[in-house]
């Protein structure tokens, strides 16, 4: 089955992104496809490469980046949510005249249309959040 996933909450504050990751991992291990993970609202904070969690804690961003690399999962951060929260790639840096970028490997910034498209093209869209 082809899944897409919507993550609506930020890392460490809420279990949604942990559960989404565990779900995606289990789906991939069971031979399913995870087409896309779309990060919305505070969920875009999953995609910053500036986090340094304590060593005995899970590294949420790194887990996602590794999943993207080894399984070709498309990790998409909502552009409007990123702009409000300071998640910046090179395009956004130049467009909005910022002096830094912080989008982690495997993530990309795009629009809400990517969420709708994923819902249309996948067999199931699974939402994680309140």
């Amino acid at each position, binding site marked *: 089955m082809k899944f897409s996933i919507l993550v609506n909450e930020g890392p460490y504050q809420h279990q949604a992104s942990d559960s989404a990751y565990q779900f995606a991992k289990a789906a991939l291990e069971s031979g399913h496809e995870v087409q896309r993970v779309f990060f*919305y*609202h505070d969920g875009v904070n999953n995609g910053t490469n500036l986090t340094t969690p304590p060593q005995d804690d899970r590294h949420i961003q790194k887990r996602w980046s590794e999943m993207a690399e080894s399984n070709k999962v498309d990790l998409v951060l909502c552009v*409007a949510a990123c702009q409000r929260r300071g998640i910046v790639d090179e395009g956004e840096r130049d467009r909005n005249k910022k002096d830094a970028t912080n989008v982690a490997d495997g993530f990309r910034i795009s*629009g809400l*249309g990517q969420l*709708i*498209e994923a*819902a*249309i093209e996948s067999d199931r869209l699974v939402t994680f959040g309140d």
Partner: protein
Amino acid sequence: MEEEYAGGVEKKFIYINRRAPHGTVYALESLETVLIGAAFDQDVSMLFIDDGVYQLKKDQSTDSIEFKNFSKAFRALEMYDVEKLFVEAESLQERGLSEDDLLVDVELVKRGEVKDLIDQQDVVLSF
């Protein structure tokens, strides 16, 4: 920035709005998703339930909280071919509201019918 979707697939989408218009960002972001999603020519419904019914309340004023008053955008949904607006009757009644308090025409559904409405959909987005 979105291109028109040329996939030719039409699914039944329902957006379930459960929260008050302000206090959290979800109501505004749900509306954003509906408006962007309209370019994809899908079969779209919206359901307002629990505190979500307040999103459709007439005469909202957000000046004092310095938030955008996006409630007027619900009136524009028709232009985006989003015409199926469902409101759970009990959620309205429990909050002392009636259809006359709402800024758009809606279809009331009973609590017991909500499950059937959701069952009919292909995609459920809950905010």
